[in-house]
Structure formats: structure tokens, C-alpha cells
């Protein structure tokens, strides 16, 4: 016979105001199996917990029901208290009489009756609770970082500096990401390359970091502490071990007119190339789509001039499997290209802005490349169409962002600041030029950010016009910008030489496909979702996977670096132990009943169901049954509801427990 203790909490007045807690304690105390029932003002407080612990020992309680707030709030607290008193924590259940009762009903009688029912149901349930031992799983102390931008680099360096091996995977031929493309950074105007490239070199030289560039994630299997990741290393056509990075191949390559993506397609590169001179690794890649050898079978100049003989036209994509314990996802962002609206996308384009049609209408990142000392113009602000210096330049903010009717309702967060920076860079380089900015609001929270924005107006003479632009069109070699100034209520027309659009920040293309491989969730824009918006901002709901940078939402550099270090700290917390404990809410197979139909295997989203052979003593195969790997099982219970022979049970949510609750009605 069970000796159940029931503890009813007043929660100050939160529960006792509408629920007659004494009556609940009294009525529940009469239920069969209940040995002790009491009420107390604050059950979660230290004296409240002591009351529970003392009652367990003095009354020799076998099970505990705490009727208080939501289990999402204090289930862990009370299970810990119960454990401290010598009971298995899973013999304690919470009855939610606050969020589901006292707070949502005003009638005292109705609320009290409902509270009695809720507690009664939990009493019946807890009778069927079983002792569940904690499950421990080993932890592989190696981390995978996906994405080699500033977020991935920071996370990889932090984890590696702690002495753990890190595998850094980057899709492009070089690490560096978008930060390497920037000219200067707000609010200090220090050169992005100068602060970024040393970190990239640190990654390349770190003994604990294994770098896979020009590689993608193919498959992710396993679970927290024990992931197996298949990485596809795309054929570089250059042997990384032999290549010295001398660059002769690039100077001799006859294909010289290929738009360089790193320079936003305004600069040109060769078919064998590194995206930018400071690339890490400094090993070129052959762009097979544009290489004459791969197109016609002739040429091979690079192979002829390469001293160490590193060029290998026969190279194939290779698959590499790495075992890791934690994954940091830092795939970053992409700019919304309003010129080419992806097919089937719910996001509407901005045809009225002529992006993609008028050559001198560019986006913010293109301006960065123009302003960059290592960019295609050597840092001179020149029009892409005719190479002239623009004397009148118009910046348009919130292109794509904050436009619900166009499909993106969020603020891209960095555009106000980078546009202010652009006006400064422009003023520094074109002294007699004039910059205009069309803006909705200036959003400049952050250390020294507002001061920086004001500087662009007060010292750098940028003219800020509050209002949006309705249309852009080409007139001769000028672009006419038609907009409104809502602060004075007039129409404005500016004949500009160049227009820069602060287009919205979006997740990288393929972010959804990667999320599906990893089993993490994402929002409707494909930004990855954190486990809790406030309290778990760097963890995914999927255990063992962490987020860093703009893949989770628009972020500036300091925020990205902080989040990357936070993700690294979470990984290190996981790696601080050899074994990790997990909740024992997992499915178990009753082998006697299992007929091996494997319906459970088909519905398991985690691949936790394996096939197990049962043999007699002579080794003859009797039958094949399902086996649930407790390390992989996430505890959803879909298998149990599916099993036709009721041979699999989810601990903590067994049929017995649930039927007992229903029968208590």
C-alpha cells in the first residue's frame, strides 16, 4: 500500500484567494492511499521544502504530490527536495492548481472542486509511478562548429583554447564570412580586416582546430554527447598538402573575367582563385563551372606553372565522418537581394527601386566593398556603371525590413548604424559630396552607438530625411529618387549619382535544409529558434546544439562575438564531465510482447529504435525485437501510441499512469 503525502501550497494568496486550500487538503486526505496531507503558505520556500522532507521521513511517505504552480515552474525544485529526503525524484508529481485553476477561475466553489479533482488525478497517477534511475551517457569531448564567420571563429577559438578539439566547417573556400567583407566597423571605425584576419590566422595555426573549408554538412546522426557528423569535402582540384599558396596559378589563369562573389560581383577573379588575398587557408580552388579545362578539356595552364604540382583535376568530393559531442551552429546571414525574388517566396520584391536594373543602385554590402581598401576600387567610392565619383549619394534604410506588407516584419538591427558609418566613409573619401539618408526611425541602442549616429549628422554633414522613397528611376546618368519628408510634409526629389539600399538581413540560403539535418527548429523567416527567448538564448531545444550569431536573428559584431563565447561556454560546461546525466523519460520495449513489426521504428523521428536479436542458449535465433537506445530516445512516446501490441512503454507516461488519471475523474 502506498503512503502518499499531499502538500497544498497557498502561493501567498495566489492560490488560496480562489481555492479553499484547507478543504482541498482535507478532502484529498480521505482518498485511499493518502497518508498525509497538509497546506502551507509557500511550499517552494526553504521552510516549505523542509516541511516536505520532514514529512517524508516522519510519515514514511512512499510518494509525494505537491499541489502548487505549474510543473514547468517548480517540478525540478520539489523533485530535488524529495531526492534529498531519500525518495526517488520520479515518485514526486506536481498538481497544477495555480495556472490551471486559481488564476483562471473566480468562483471559489468551482475552483475548489476543480482543485480537488486535479489533485485527486495526480494522487492516482503517482500511485503508478515507478522508481526511475538516472541515465548517464558518455560525452565525446570534441565540438563541431558550422560556419566560419566571426561567430564560428570566436566559438572555435574559445573551445579550442580550453583544450578541446574543434572541427570547423565552412562552405566557402575561406573562413572569414561577412565580417571579412566589411571595410570599417561601427562605432569605432576600425578596419574590419585588421581585427578579423589575425583571428583567422589563429584558427589556421591552432593545434586543436581542424579546419574543413569548401565543405558542407551532409548528415548528422546521434544525440547530445555522441553525434556522428558526415562532412562533404568538395573537390578543390588543388592538393592542400602540396600547395604553398604562391599564387602563380592565379596570375597565369587565362579566365580573368569572372565576377567575384566576395566583391559582391563588382570585382573580377580568375577561374582558379582565392576569394580574397588574406584568405585562410591560402589554398586556391578551381571554379569548375568557369574553368576552361573543365569546360573544354584544354588549357591546363595552372597545372603547368604549379611548381609543387598541387593541381589535381581528378580530385573528387570526399565524405568524412567525425564524432563530436556538441555542435555550434553559426551559419550567419545573407542580404536580401531585392533584384531577384526567389520563386515561391512569400516575400514581395521592390521592383520600384530598380535594384538589378539600374547599375548604380547597390546594396550596403557592395558599398562596403567599394569603401574597402582591399576592394575592387582600392577604397575609392566609384560608380559601378562608369567609374565616376558620385557627388550626390542617397541611402535608403529599411529596404525589406519592417515592412509587413512586403513579407518581413522584423528590424534588421544593424542598418541604422552601418548607414551612419557609410555616410561618414563617403564624406571622408568624397569631400565635396553630399549624402542623404531616407529613414523611418534611427535605432541606435548600444554603447557609443547614438553618439556615432549623431556624429554622422552633426560633424559629417549627412542630411537625414524622415520618410520613405516611393520610386527610383534613371534620368540620363542620374537616378531620380522620389520620396517624402514627413517631418515637414513635403515631397522630395533628389537627383542622385548613386543609391545605396540598406536591404534586410536574412538567414543564409539553405538554413532550413541544415536545420532539418540537425533536427533544430526555425521560425518562418528560417532564423533558428533558441530554447528560451530570455533564459536560454544560445541553446537549441535539441540538446547538445548551440547557436551563435546572425543565424538566430540579426546581430551586430559585438553581440555576435558575445553569443559565440556564450555558446562556447555552454559547450565547455557539457565537456566538463566525462558522463552526463539525462532525464530517464525514455521508451522501453517489453520484449516478450514485441512481435518485431517495427511500426515504432517507422514513427521514431530520432532513429532511436534498433533491431535486437533474441537467441537461445545454443545461439539459435528466436526472434528479432525492437530495442530503444536510451541515449537517443527523446521521450515523445509516439512509438507507444503506435505499437499495435502495446509492447513499448514510455517511462513516466505509462498507459497505467494515464488510465489511472482518467479513471480518477
Amino acid at each position: 500500500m502506498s503512503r502518499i503525502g499531499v502538500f497544498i501550497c497557498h502561493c501567498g494568496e495566489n492560490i488560496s484567494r480562489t481555492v479553499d486550500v484547507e478543504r482541498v487538503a482535507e478532502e484529498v486526505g480521505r482518498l485511499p492511499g493518502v497518508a498525509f496531507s497538509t497546506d502551507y503558505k509557500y511550499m517552494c520556500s526553504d521552510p516549505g521544502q523542509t516541511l516536505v522532507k520532514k514529512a517524508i521521513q516522519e510519515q514514511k511517505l512512499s510518494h509525494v504530490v505537491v499541489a502548487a504552480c505549474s510543473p514547468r515552474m517548480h517540478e525540478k525544485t520539489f523533485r530535488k527536495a524529495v531526492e534529498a529526503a531519500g525518495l526517488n525524484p520520479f515518485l514526486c508529481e506536481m498538481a497544477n492548481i495555480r495556472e490551471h485553476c486559481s488564476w483562471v477561475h473566480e468562483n471559489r466553489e468551482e475552483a475548489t472542486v476543480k482543485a480537488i479533482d486535479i489533485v485527486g488525478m495526480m494522487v492516482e497517477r503517482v500511485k503508478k509511478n515507478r522508481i526511475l534511475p538516472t541515465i548517464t551517457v558518455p560525452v565525446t569531448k570534441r565540438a563541431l562548429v558550422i560556419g566560419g564567420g566571426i561567430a564560428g571563429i570566436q566559438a572555435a577559438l574559445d573551445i579550442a583554447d580550453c583544450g578541446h578539439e574543434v572541427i570547423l566547417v565552412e562552405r566557402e573556400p575561406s573562413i572569414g564570412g561577412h565580417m571579412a567583407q566589411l571595410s570599417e566597423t561601427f562605432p569605432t571605425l576600425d578596419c574590419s580586416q585588421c581585427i578579423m584576419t589575425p583571428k583567422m590566422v589563429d584558427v589556421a595555426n591552432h593545434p586543436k582546430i581542424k579546419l574543413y573549408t569548401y565543405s558542407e554538412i551532409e548528415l548528422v546522426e546521434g544525440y547530445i554527447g555522441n553525434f556522428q557528423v558526415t562532412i562533404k569535402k568538395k573537390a578543390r582540384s588543388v592538393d592542400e598538402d602540396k600547395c604553398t599558396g604562391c599564387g602563380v596559378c592565379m596570375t597565369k589563369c587565362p579566365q580573368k573575367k569572372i565576377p567575384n562573389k566576395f566583391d559582391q560581383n563588382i570585382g573580377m577573379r580568375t577561374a582558379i582563385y582565392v576569394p580574397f588575398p588574406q584568405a585562410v587557408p591560402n589554398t586556391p580552388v578551381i571554379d569548375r563551372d568557369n574553368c576552361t579545362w573543365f569546360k573544354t578539356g584544354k588549357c591546363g595552364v595552372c597545372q603547368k606553372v604549379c611548381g609543387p604540382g598541387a593541381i589535381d583535376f581528378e580530385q573528387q568530393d570526399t565524405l568524412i565522418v567525425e564524432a563530436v559531442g556538441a555542435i555550434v551552429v553559426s551559419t550567419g546571414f545573407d542580404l536580401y537581394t531585392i533584384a531577384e525574388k526567389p520563386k515561391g517566396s512569400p516575400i514581395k520584391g521592390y521592383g520600384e527601386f530598380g535594384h538589378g536594373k539600374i547599375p548604380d543602385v547597390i546594396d550596403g554590402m557592395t558599398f562596403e566593398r567599394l569603401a574597402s581598401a582591399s576592394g575592387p576600387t582600392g577604397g575609392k567610392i566609384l560608380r559601378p556603371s562608369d567609374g565616376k565619383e558620385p557627388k550626390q549619394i542617397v541611402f535608403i534604410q529599411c529596404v525589406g525590413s519592417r515592412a509587413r506588407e512586403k513579407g518581413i516584419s522584423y528590424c534588421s538591427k544593424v542598418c541604422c548604424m552601418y548607414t551612419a558609418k557609410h555616410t561618414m566613409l563617403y564624406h571622408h573619401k568624397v569631400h565635396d559630396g553630399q549624402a542623404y539618408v531616407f529613414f523611418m526611425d534611427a535605432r541606435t541602442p548600444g554603447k557609443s552607438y547614438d553618439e556615432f549616429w549623431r556624429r554622422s549628422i552633426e560633424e559629417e554633414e549627412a542630411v537625414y530625411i524622415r520618410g520613405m522613397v516611393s520610386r527610383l528611376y534613371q534620368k540620363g546618368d542620374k537616378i531620380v529618387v522620389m520620396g517624402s519628408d514627413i517631418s515637414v510634409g513635403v515631397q522630395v526629389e533628389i537627383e542622385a549619382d548613386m543609391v545605396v539600399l540598406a536591404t534586410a538581413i536574412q538567414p543564409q540560403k539553405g538554413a532550413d535544409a541544415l536545420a532539418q539535418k540537425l533536427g533544430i527548429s526555425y521560425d518562418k523567416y528560417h532564423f533558428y529558434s533558441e530554447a528560451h527567448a530570455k533564459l536560454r538564448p544560445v541553446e537549441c531545444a535539441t540538446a547538445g546544439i548551440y547557436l551563435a550569431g546572425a543565424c538566430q536573428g540579426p546581430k551586430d559584431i559585438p553581440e555576435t562575438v558575445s553569443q559565440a563565447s556564450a555558446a562556447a561556454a555552454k559547450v565547455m560546461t557539457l565537456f566538463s564531465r566525462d558522463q552526463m546525466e539525462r532525464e530517464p523519460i525514455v521508451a522501453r520495449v517489453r520484449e516478450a510482447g514485441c512481435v518485431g513489426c517495427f511500426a515504432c521504428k517507422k514513427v521514431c523521428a530520432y532513429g532511436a529504435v534498433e533491431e535486437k536479436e533474441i537467441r537461445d542458449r545454443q545461439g539459435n535465433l528466436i526472434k528479432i525485437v525492437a530495442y530503444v537506445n536510451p541515449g537517443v530516445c527523446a521521450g515523445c512516446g509516439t512509438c507507444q501510441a503506435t505499437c499495435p501490441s502495446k509492447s513499448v512503454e514510455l517511462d513516466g507516461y505509462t498507459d497505467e499512469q494515464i488510465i489511472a488519471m482518467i479513471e480518477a475523474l
Partner: protein
Amino acid sequence: MHSENQKHDFEPKIIAFVCTWCTYAGADLAGTSRMQYPSNVRVLKFPCTGRIDPVFILKAFQQGADGVLVSGCHPGDCHYIAGNFHARRRFAAFRKLLEFIGVDLGRLAFSWVSAAEGGKWVEVVTDLTEKVRAMGPMVEFKDLALEEQWSGVINTPELQEAYDAI
């Protein structure tokens, strides 16, 4: 919003089977936001709607429930990747079966309520309660439960007397 003081002749019993991650949290949010709804509902928490066996719904009707609500994460939001899709399929088939045996499908509601939708939870619960209240008590399954007892256990003094007399 529902007025708690209004008296009704019939108070239906509503059982809600919900998942921990979305609907249970949504119901918690309704509580933290102090929204008001009829007190007829009793909530049973599951890790995922995928865990909910249709047998539980039958059992609930048998135990005197007049209405049953199944609610989980929105499609695509399942904490367990695809549990709610399995649940959706299962209930689509199960509803047909219930209809076949003559249960009014108005008594069984299926909805998606996310952790951010406290208001939707109130709406869903209130709607079902009012609908079932208008439909009156569900008797069919309770009669079945009684029949089961006839064939099995003798649990009333009258029966015992009759049995002893034989």
C-alpha cells in the same frame, strides 16, 4: 468572456489531452495572464500529442467525459520533430471510427495551441465547453461502462442479494 456566476442546468465534463511543450505552456500563459475560462476542463499532460493513444479518448468518454480536447504544437513546431503529424493522422482516422459508431464529433475537438497562445487556449476551451453544454450529457459510453460491470463485478447490495438468492 465566460461569466462564472451564470448558473447552468448541466455542467459538462471536459478532458483535455495536451502536449507539454506547446499547449500546456499555452494554458500556463492563460493563467499567468489571468484570463478566465469555464472550470469544466481537466488537463492531462503528455510529452507530445504523438503519445496520445485514441484508447485514452474512448476511456475518457467511458469515464464520464462529455467532451474531449486534444491539443498540441502547430504543424512544423513539434518539439519532437514530427509527433504532432503522427497524432494528426491518427486522429483523422480515429474520428471516422467514432463517427461510425455513432459519436457526435462535436464532442471531440482537435486544435493547435502554441506556448504563446494563451488567448487561443481560452477560446478553444470555452468553445468546446459551450458546444458540449448545448449538446447535453454523453450517455452512450457510460451505458457501455455499466454493461461491462454487469458482466463482471457484483458491486451493489441489490445484485449481491439477487446472486445469493439463486
